Structures are given as structure tokens and as C-alpha cells.
């Protein structure tokens, strides 16, 4: 597996990019050249310089520092969203696929309905009605996404639940919990990893969109979507302010998308035997 991973250039490159971005985010206070909140109003709209490598925004704050601090909410919230989605969707999918019968019928009917929900509009509705804060943004995104995972994981579980190794395990009296966690979970893990890394990109875009609309992370917290919202207000006077946060989003999302594709190639069982 490790050799296959190192062999795949896209995988190595994208994982490196994501890790570097994450590390920069974690060590933001040591790396950022300036305080992301400190407004230097005399120097607003400053061009690129040694003191402000990416210039300053409409309040004279260092754009690079804000970008670096912005990694934390952007990436952190996306990861939290995916963990929530995987947790809820995974649980429902496992239960439906393994226990069948009534459990499955109920869960899958709910999933059917959730999949026909107009998702983007429901996100707005959930955030609007529950109140605008970060916690509700995550809730809303998990709410509209879990059903996809439930269905996917159920299909995966159904492929494995009647395989010999699981039947044998059941035969010798292994508890259901053990079968679910130690036999079924590892079998479907690779599918999940691929799907999750593709969808983190989706989550990043969704969260930054909500912040851009003023429904997510609130100013003055540096978040890429919120930074673009501020840039929008000064679009005519300082059009360059929107470039850096936008490119940051594109790089991170593309890295996750390409990583998902590469991981799929690596983890594809058909290739392993070849």
C-alpha cells in the first residue's frame, strides 16, 4: 500500500499540499508575519511589500496573515462537517445494511426523501431558522449530506455481510458489535476515504459560501469566504483584494478533489491483484 502510494505522483503531491496547508494553519501564530486583526488604517489597500507580502485590505489588515489564520476555520469546519456526516451516515448505513428488515425499511425511506430535498435551499433554511452561528452551519451541512453516505455505506455493507468470513464469525458466536466494527468497517473504509476526501472540497466551498453570504463565520474572524465578502464590498475601489482568498480556496479544494481521485486509484482492489 505504501509503495503504491509513493508511486502515485498525484497522491503524494496533493497529500503534501494538504498537510502543508494544515500545518501552516496549526502554527499560524508563528508563521503569520502580522496580527490578522490589527488594522493599520493609514496603510489600507497597500500593494505587495516586505511588511505586507500580499498587501492589505480595506481596513489595512495584512491579507497574508488573515489567509494563514483563515485556514483554521475553513479547514477545521470542513473536517468537522465531514466527521459529522461520516458518523451519522455511517451509523445509519451500517444499521440498515446489516440488520435489514424493518430497520432498513425505515432508514432507507427517510434517506430517499432526504435525497430528493433541494439541498442548497434547505441549508439556508436550517441556518436561518436555527440562528446564524458556526455550530448551525455544521449541523445544516451534515443534515443535507448524511443520506448520501447512509446509502453508499449500506450498499457496501450488503456486499460484505454474506461473505464467508463474516458468516464464519457469526457462526462462532462473535458479538454483532465486533462484526460491525472489526469486520465490516475495515472492508468499506477505503470507499469511505475516497468519498470523504472528494466531499471535503464540497464542504469547504459550502462553508465559505455561507460565510460569504454572512450566514457562517462572522467578521472580523478571518475566514476565506468572509474575506471574500469584505472584498466584494470594495470591489470597485480595490479589485485585487478578492484574488488571494479565492485562489486559496481553489488550491485547497482542487487538492482535495485530486487527492480523492488518486486515492481511488490506489485503493482500488482490482488494481491490487494485478
Amino acid at each position, binding site marked *: 500500500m505504501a509503495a503504491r502510494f509513493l508511486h502515485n505522483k498525484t497522491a503524494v503531491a496533493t497529500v503534501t499540499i494538504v498537510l502543508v496547508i494544515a500545518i501552516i494553519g496549526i502554527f499560524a501564530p508563528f508563521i503569520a508575519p502580522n496580527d490578522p486583526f490589527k488594522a493599520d488604517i493609514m496603510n489600507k489597500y497597500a500593494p505587495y511589500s516586505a511588511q505586507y507580502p500580499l498587501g492589505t485590505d480595506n481596513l489595512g489588515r495584512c491579507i497574508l496573515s488573515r489567509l494563514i489564520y483563515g485556514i483554521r476555520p475553513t479547514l477545521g469546519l470542513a473536517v468537522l462537517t465531514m466527521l459529522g456526516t461520516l458518523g451519522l451516515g455511517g451509523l445509519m448505513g451500517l444499521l440498515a445494511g446489516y440488520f435489514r428488515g424493518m430497520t432498513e425499511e425505515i432508514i432507507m425511506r427517510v434517506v430517499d426523501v432526504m435525497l430528493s430535498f433541494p439541498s442548497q435551499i434547505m441549508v439556508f433554511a436550517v441556518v436561518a431558522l436555527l440562528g446564524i452561528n458556526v455550530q448551525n452551519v455544521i449541523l445544516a451541512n451534515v443534515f443535507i449530506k448524511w443520506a448520501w453516505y447512509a446509502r453508499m455505506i449500506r450498499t457496501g455493507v450488503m456486499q460484505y455481510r454474506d461473505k464467508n468470513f463474516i458468516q464464519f464469525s457469526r457462526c462462532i458466536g462473535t458479538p454483532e458489535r465486533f462484526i460491525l466494527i472489526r469486520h465490516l468497517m475495515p472492508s468499506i473504509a477505503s470507499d469511505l476515504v475516497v468519498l470523504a476526501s472528494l466531499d471535503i472540497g464540497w464542504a469547504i*466551498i459550502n462553508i465559505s459560501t455561507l460565510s460569504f453570504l454572512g450566514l457562517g463565520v462572522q467578521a472580523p474572524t478571518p475566514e476565506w469566504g468572509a474575506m471574500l465578502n469584505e472584498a466584494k464590498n470594495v470591489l470597485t475601489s480595490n479589485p485585487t483584494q478578492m484574488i488571494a482568498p479565492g485562489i486559496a480556496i481553489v488550491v485547497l479544494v482542487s487538492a482535495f478533489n485530486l487527492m480523492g481521485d488518486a486515492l481511488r486509484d490506489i485503493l482500488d482492489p482490482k488494481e491490487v491483484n494485478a
Partner: protein
Amino acid sequence: MTADIQYKIKKETRLRAGHHFVYALLRALSVVVLITIAVFFLMRLVPGDPAVMVLGEHADEAEIQKLREQLMLNEPLSKQFAAFLGNIFLHFDTGDSIKYGVSSRDLVLQYAPVTLALVAYASVITVISAVILAFLAATHKDSLIDHAIRVIPAFTQGMPVFWIGLILISVFAVNLGWFPVGGVGSGMGGFWHSLTLPAVTIALGQIPSLVRSLREQLLEIMDADFVLTLRAAKIPESVIFRKHIFKNAFVPTLMLFSVNLSYMIGGTLIIERVFAVRGMGKLLFDAISNRDFPLVQAVTLYCAVFVVLISLITELIAAKADPRMRQKEKSFGNNAG
């Protein structure tokens, strides 16, 4: 004898089509009902008094009581719910806006036309360019055009649509001055002219996935045996394309487009905000910041019903155009059971 069999087959097909229609209708209805329920209970889940949240902490006690009366918050939950459902399903009444004091339905009807025009404009751009690009890519497979058409979307997929909008504004509106920066122009020409940039922005978000799917479909069908047979029979290439290949690629593309339409409506609301278009997006986001709960509920419901209706219609068109789609339901049911 043959006539008898033919009659039986015909009858059976009609029956199955009828089943399909009922099934699709029931599913659409259940989604609408569930969305209604969700929209109702989401507001009640909020900790604290909605009336206080609307009017603020320091509002007059009498004012708060009045609003509580208006929102029926003093009644038991079951009664509120019954009234809410009754008003919606019997009178098509989604309650009055708190901020504007008029019926939310009238507000939606007033703001909806711009949004519908924008969605229609964007759909036309999307479909025309997707068909042309996919056609080019499929007929020139593995050429430079094909690669370009396939590689560029990989990058655009990582772009937030609102950012594309900002770039288009700064290039075509601020720098070149070809289009207005925002708002809706007056007169027929001005109206469509001012909607061009937003429509293009929305379309740019939709085109990649549509092109990719349509290209795959076209390639698959172009390789099919029946196309080879048609070629062997010296049917003109243009006829094969028009009557056979496109017809086969139409239904899957339509289905994908209808799935995307749900995102497109959501995207339109966002893009309206970027371009300061006074449509449903403005109504919704203003309602959110004013904590105008009935209006938020109304806009959500109307948008959701619109999306559900469109997907119901496309599903029925697809079933009509391609008999294989009617069979899908059955195999799907088998998988589920």
C-alpha cells in the same frame, strides 16, 4: 393471435407507465409535506422565544405579546401545527411577513419573476454550450479540443461560484464596462442585458458536469452496435446523429440537468446577492437578517416546491421519452428490498 399479444403488451406498458406516474407523484408529494414539517419545526427548535428574537431583548412587553398572538405562539404546539398546515394546504397562505406586514405569498410572487427569468436564461446558456462542447469533444475524441474541454473543468470545479461572479464583475463590468456592475436594467433590452453576467456565472458552475456526462453518453452510443449497423446501411451521418445518437443521449442528460437544477436554484439565490439583483435571493437573505421567520419559511417552501415540481416534470418527460426509465423504478425497488 399476434394482435392479441400486441394488445396485451400495449396494455401492460400503459399500466406500468401509470404506476410510474403515481409513484413519482407520491414521492414528490411526500417530499413537499416533509419539507413543510421541517420548516415548521426548525423554527420551534430554537431555544428562547422567537418573538423576542424578532423584536430584540428590550422590546415593549405589549409588542412582544402582539407578535406572539400573530405567530400563534401562545397556542399549544399541535394547534399551531394544524393551523400552519391548514393555511398552507387549504388556502395557499404562508403567513404574513413580520417586517413588511403583507402576505408573504404576495412578496414571493412579486420577487419571483426576476429569479425565474435568471434561472431560465442560465439554463438556456448551460444547455446550448454544454451540447456544443460535448459534441465537439466526442467527435474529436483525444484531440486537443477534447483534452481542453476535459481539463479546464477540473480547475473550475474548485472555484466557488460567487468568486467566479466577482471576477466576471471586475473584468467585464468594472474594467471593460460592457455590463452593469449590478442591479436590473430597465426596459426589455436592459433587463436581459443586466442579467447576462449573472446568468453566465450560474451557467459556468453547471456546464462542466453536464459536458462530462453528455460526452460519455455520446461516446458510448457512438460505439454501439446499432450505430455501426446504421452506418453499414449508408444512412447519412447527420441523420444518425440527429435521430439516433442525440435521442439516446437526451434522457440521461435531462435527468442530470434536473438534479443540477436544485443546486442551480440555490446558486441563483447566491449569485443574485453578488450582482445585487432584486429577486428571491434578496428576499430570502433580507428576511434572514431581519429574523422575519414567516418570510423565510415562505421563500424556502416556494423554492423547494418549485424544485420538486421541476424534477417531477423532468422525470415524467424522461419516462415518456425513454421506456427504459420506467423500468428503473422496479429494479431500484428490488435493490432496496
